[in-house]
């Protein structure tokens, strides 16, 4: 079981959720890695859209920034950033918004703005970027981040992007068009919202991880599904594709990961 890392498993698990042929609005970093892995494995027809303008990007190496030339050169077309947000995201054409986050709460609301008070921040985070409208307008949203008590908090200091707000039908009542987060994928497991309360529930645990570990990495009393599944281990072809992708990326850039800007 130890022939893959927790990050590899997280990335593979996230990539599997992406259906072939779906149109995906991709954040940079883990979401971009997972989405491109999906494209290189089970979902060759997935359409990747980046907020900088590329539509249908098929990068050979992962972008380090949201505006890498590789995205433009491999895309079906590149439109202006306003057009991306107006015609494509707000236009209702995005099946899946694939986001990272600094912090999430039990209703999958996201904070990427500030730790502490907004006017007197303890830590000033980068801010909203495209997330508020991706979170509200994509038909569904996947959130991928590492699980820790600092990231999975009982109460967000700031809601940058809406998940299910206070839970139940709060999101619908607020008039938010998209369906909201359907999965939060971490290095420990997969949480999905309860169909009624919308509270995040651990529905799949990664192999080798204990429920206690997941609970300890969560800042609230995490609900565990009665029929808790174990995440299938990465298949050799998935691992090979991921490692090849990362190796190509490192070779091209001398660097991994990436952020907005």
């Amino acid at each position, binding site marked *: 079981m130890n022939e893959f890392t927790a990050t590899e498993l997280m990335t593979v698990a996230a990539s599997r959720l992406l259906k072939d042929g779906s149109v995906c609005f991709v954040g940079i970093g883990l979401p971009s890695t997972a989405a491109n892995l999906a494209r290189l494995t089970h979902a060759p027809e997935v359409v990747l859209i980046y907020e900088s*303008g590329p539509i249908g990007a098929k990068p050979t190496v992962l972008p380090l920034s949201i505006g890498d030339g590789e995205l433009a050169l491999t895309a079906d077309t590149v439109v202006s950033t306003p057009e991306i947000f107006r015609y494509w995201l707000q236009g209702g054409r995005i099946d899946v918004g694939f986001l990272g986050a600094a912090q999430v709460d039990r209703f999958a609301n996201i904070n990427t703005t500030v730790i502490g008070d907004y006017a007197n921040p303890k830590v000033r985070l980068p801010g909203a970027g495209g997330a508020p409208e991706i979170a509200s307008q994509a038909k569904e949203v996947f959130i991928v981040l590492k699980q820790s008590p600092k990231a999975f908090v009982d109460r967000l200091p700031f809601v940058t992007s809406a998940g299910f707000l206070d839970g139940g039908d709060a999101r619908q009542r607020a008039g938010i068009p998209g369906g909201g987060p359907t999965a939060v994928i971490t290095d420990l497991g997969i949480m999905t919202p309860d169909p009624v309360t919308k509270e995040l529930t651990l529905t799949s645990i990664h192999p080798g991880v204990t429920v206690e570990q997941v609970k300890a990495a969560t800042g609230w009393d995490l609900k565990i599904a009665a029929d808790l599944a174990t995440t299938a281990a990465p298949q050799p072809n998935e691992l090979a594709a991921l490692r090849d992708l990362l190796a190509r990326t490192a070779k091209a850039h001398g660097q991994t990961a990436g952020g907005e800007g």
Partner: protein
Amino acid sequence: MALVMPLREAVSEFVRDGDTVALEGFTHLIPHAAGHEIIRQGRKNLTLVRMTPDLIYDQLIGMGCAGKLIFSWGGNPGVGSLHRFRDAIERGWPQPLAYEEHSHAALANAYVAGASNLPFALLRGYTGSDLPKVNPNIRFIECPFTGEKLAAIPSIRPDVTVIHAQKADRRGNVLLWGIVGVQKEAVLAAKRAIVTVEEIVDELDAPPNGCVLPRWTLSAVCHVPGGAYPSYAQGYSERDNRFYQRWDAVARSREDFTAWMDRHVRNTADFEEFKRVLAETARQEAA
């Protein structure tokens, strides 16, 4: 009207203390050379607008050029925090920085509204976010036909917009391509516009429906090859990802930052000299 002119003259003539200034470019085509020239000329009390304030805004803020920032994502892409941006916001150094914060969708729409000479941008946005609670410039209006509630923010109308582009012709018509971001809108929303370009050519050879800014929409066109560095210009240069990583260490302390800026920007005459000194620094670090 001498449209094609040196960058120093363009900044001297068209960027004034207290101006609202947008230096735009979405990872690609960020006008770093022009930002340096604004620092060299010691502009003060600028309201800086940019969707993704990155290194060049970290530098402008850290050098005390900015009184206010309007933005939607402030970080060092792929690396982490902008330390000068954070220091200004968290600790008011070198001076307090007022800021107005939006989402990308809203700011992109606000540039469109500015280019369209509308007083505000209309979008489906901010639903469920706390941003409207902290930004009084996010308001909501009703559709006069359906009664739906929609977000509104003021349009952006910079005094001057600065961008970097691939090409201009000798008369000053400009062509850019690839990831064009909000640059066209930012130029058309502004009272004045400065464009630095990789090259000046006899004929633009623009593709059909290419992103062209006619000369009569611009105040100055300046030939600054590599002027986006460490950002890039598609077809001309690659992004220097290592510089973005190194910046993290440079900008972490006030002292290192100030020393670096003095050596590389304040004490250099222009972007050519900046690049020479930077290469020297790299050789010293490698030694």
